[in-house]
C-alpha cells in the first residue's frame, strides 16, 4: 500500500488508529495557494506516541489541524491525500460527520494553556460539554464524569473545582484540564500540539508524565507535536522530523537519536545546548524559507552543507542503512 503503512514497526498488528496518507495542505497567501504541507504520510497505533518535530513554521500545526478538520476557513485547505481516524475517512466525510468525530474519537490539546480554555465558562462544564454533545449525557451525569476525569489528571480537590474558572488555575493545571477535556469521550486518537512549550520545566515534566500515564492506560494513539528534542527523547516511541512541509526523517526514537541521518536532524541536535556534556553549539545558518519562496526540490537545500545539484529534485524517503523503519529524505544520505 502506501508509505504510511510501510513504517510500521510494532509487531502486534493492531490496526493504526490514525492514518495520514499523502496529506497535502495548502495555505492561501494573497490569491495564490501554496503547499504548506507536502504529501506527508504516517500512522499512529493505539498506545503509541509519534512525535512530530521541526522548526517553527514547518507545518506541524497545519498537519494537526488538517487531521482535526479545523483549518481556518478560506485560508487553509486540504488539497490532497487521505486522513483516516479510527476507520473513518475524515477527508471524504461531510462537516456533521467530522463534528461528530471531533471531541469524540479524536481529541486535541493546544499549545497555549492560558488561552485555550474559555475564560467565562466553569472548568467542569467545559470538560463535560463534549460528553453532553456526543454521549447525550445529562448535565449532571456529565459533570460527574468530568469530576472523575479531573481526578484522573490529578487536579486536587476536583469535586470542588468543577465550578472554578480557568483564571483560578495555574498554567500547568489548565493544561491538565485540557487533557481531561480531550479525553472526555475516550477518544482513540489524541493530538497534542506543543502541549508544554509554554510551561516551566518542572511543570512540563508533570504534564508529560501525566499524558504518558493516561495514554498507556487508555490505549491512546498519541501524536505529539513539539520542537523540543529533549521531550521527544523522553516520551516518544517514534519520531518524525519535518522541514518546510516535508517529512525529512522518521524512525524509532532510539534509532533516530543514535543515528540522526538527515542533515537538518543532525543540525537540530547540534544546536541544542545540554545540561551535561560540553559539546559546542552548532547553529544552523540561515532561515526556513518562507512559504512563498520554497525551493521546489529539497527544501533544506538552501541551508544544507551537503547540498549538490540533485537537491533541485525532491529526494524520496528511503531507509537508513538496513533499518526499514528509519527513513530519510536526502540524496546524500541514501543507502547506495
Amino acid at each position, binding site marked *: 500500500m502506501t508509505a504510511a503503512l510501510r513504517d510500521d514497526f510494532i509487531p502486534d498488528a493492531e490496526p493504526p488508529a490514525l492514518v495520514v496518507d499523502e496529506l497535502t495542505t495548502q495555505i492561501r497567501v494573497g490569491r495564490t495557494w501554496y503547499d504548506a504541507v507536502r504529501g506527508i504520510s504516517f500512522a499512529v497505533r493505539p498506545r503509541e506516541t509519534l512525535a512530530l518535530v521541526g*522548526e*517553527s513554521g514547518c507545518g506541524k500545526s497545519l498537519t494537526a489541524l488538517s487531521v482535526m478538520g479545523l483549518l481556518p476557513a478560506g485560508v487553509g485547505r486540504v488539497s490532497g491525500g487521505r486522513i483516516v481516524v479510527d476507520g473513518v475517512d475524515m477527508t471524504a466525510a461531510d462537516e456533521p460527520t467530522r463534528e461528530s468525530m471531533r471531541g469524540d474519537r479524536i481529541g486535541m490539546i493546544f499549545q497555549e494553556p492560558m488561552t485555550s480554555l474559555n475564560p467565562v465558562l466553569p472548568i467542569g462544564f467545559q470538560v463535560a460539554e463534549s460528553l453532553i454533545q456526543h454521549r447525550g449525557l445529562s448535565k449532571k451525569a456529565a459533570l460527574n464524569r468530568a469530576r472523575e476525569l479531573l481526578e484522573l489528571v*490529578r487536579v*486536587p480537590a476536583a469535586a470542588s473545582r468543577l465550578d472554578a474558572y480557568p483564571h483560578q488555575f*495555574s*498554567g*500547568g*493545571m489548565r493544561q491538565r484540564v485540557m487533557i481531561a477535556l480531550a479525553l472526555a469521550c475516550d477518544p482513540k486518537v489524541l493530538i497534542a500540539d506543543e502541549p508544554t512549550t509554554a510551561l*516551566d*520545566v*518542572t*511543570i*512540563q*515534566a*508533570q504534564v*508529560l*508524565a*501525566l499524558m*504518558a*500515564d493516561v495514554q498507556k492506560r487508555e490505549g491512546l494513539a498519541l501524536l505529539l507535536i513539539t*520542537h*523540543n*528534542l*529533549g*521531550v*521527544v*527523547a*523522553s*516520551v516518544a516511541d517514534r519520531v518524525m522530523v519535518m522541514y518546510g512541509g516535508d517529512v525529512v526523517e522518521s524512525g524509532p*526514537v*532510539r534509532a533516530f*537519536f543514535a543515528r540522526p541521518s538527515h542533515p537538518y536532524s543532525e*543540525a*537540530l*541536535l547540534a*544546536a*541544542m*545546548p*545540554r*545540561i*551535561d556534556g*560540553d559539546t559546542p*553549539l*552548532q*547553529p*544552523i545558518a540561515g*532561515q526556513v524559507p518562507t512559504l512563498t519562496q520554497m525551493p521546489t526540490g529539497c527544501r533544506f537545500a538552501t541551508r544544507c552543507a551537503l547540498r549538490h545539484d540533485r537537491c533541485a529534485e525532491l529526494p524520496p524517503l528511503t531507509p537508513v542503512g538496513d533499518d526499514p523503519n528509519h527513513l530519510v529524505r536526502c540524496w546524500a544520505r541514501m543507502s547506495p
Partner: protein
Amino acid sequence: MTATPLLDIRDLRKIYKTRRGWPIPKTALVRALDGVSFTVGRGEALGVVGESGCGKSTVARVALRLQEADGGAVQFDGTDVLAAGKTDLRTLRRRMQMVFQDPASSLDGRQRIIDALGEPLRVHGIASGAAVKPAVVRLLDEVGLPPSAVDRYPHEFSGGQRQRIGIARALALGPDLIFADEPVSALDVSVQAQILKLLETLRRERNLAFVFISHDLGVVRYFCQRVVVMYLGRVVETGPVPEIFVDPLHPYTRLLKLSSPEPDPARAVAMAFQEGEPPSPVDPPSGCHFHPRCPIAVDRCRTEAPALRELRTGRHAACHLAT
C-alpha cells in the same frame, strides 16, 4: 569572582500591590523579591534561573530602576543605583542595558531600524547628524546583520533577527553590563544557538558582564559561569557552572535538573509525576517556600526560613538539610 564586583545586589526587596476583587477590590501584596542578594563581576555571565513568577524579571527591572525597589541596595561599579538622581541615572543607563524576552514587543513597531538604533545614540550625544548611520551600520554588523537592514521595520525581520536588533540596541550605548531577560526563550532551537553564540562572542570581545535570565538549564549551562537559582522571590542556591548542575545542593535545583529533558533517549529523564503546584507569591508558604513540594522536607522547613549558607567554596544554598 573579582574582588570588587561590577554589580552588587544586596537584600533587594520589591513588593507589588495588586488590587483585585469584585465588587470591592482588596489590596494584595506580592512579595516579588524577598531579600535577594548576588554579585556579578566584570565580564562575567551570571545565570538566574527559576520558575515562572519567581521574580527573575523583577530583579532586572528594579536594578535598572525601571521600577523602584522597596528595600535593599544596588551598587553598580561603586555607585548607589537606587539613590541615583536623574543625571546620575542617565550615566548609569549608558552602562547598564537590557535585552528583553520578546523581541517583537520590545521594539517599537513603528520605528525603522535606523531610528531604533540611532535614537539612543542621538539622545545620549554619542553620534549625531551624518555620523549616526555609520554608527548604526557598525552596530548591525556587530550582531551580524547587513547594512541594508537600516531602512526596514521590525516586522520585516524574523524572530531571531529581531532579537539581534534588540541586542544591538542594548550595545549601542556601550554598556558594561547587560541584563538579558530570557533573550532566547521565544526563539527556535537553531536560532537560539545563533544568538547564544553571538552573546558569547560579545561577552568575550567587549568584556561585557551579563545577568542572564532563563529557565532553560541547558542554555544557562552553555552561557554562564555562575548561576543563581531563585524560588518565589528568594535565592535558594548559587554556585559556579557546571558544579551546580552536576551536584545540586538544594532540592529545588535538583528538581529542576531532573525535569529538564535531555535529547538522548538513553538518558531520558524519568518523567515522574511531581505532586504540587508552584505556590502563589501572594500567599507564600511559611518557612522554606519550597517545602510543600520538597520530597525531603522536615518540620523545621515549615516554620523556619533557611538562610543562604556557604556549603562549598563559592557555593551557597538555602536549605536546612543540605550539607
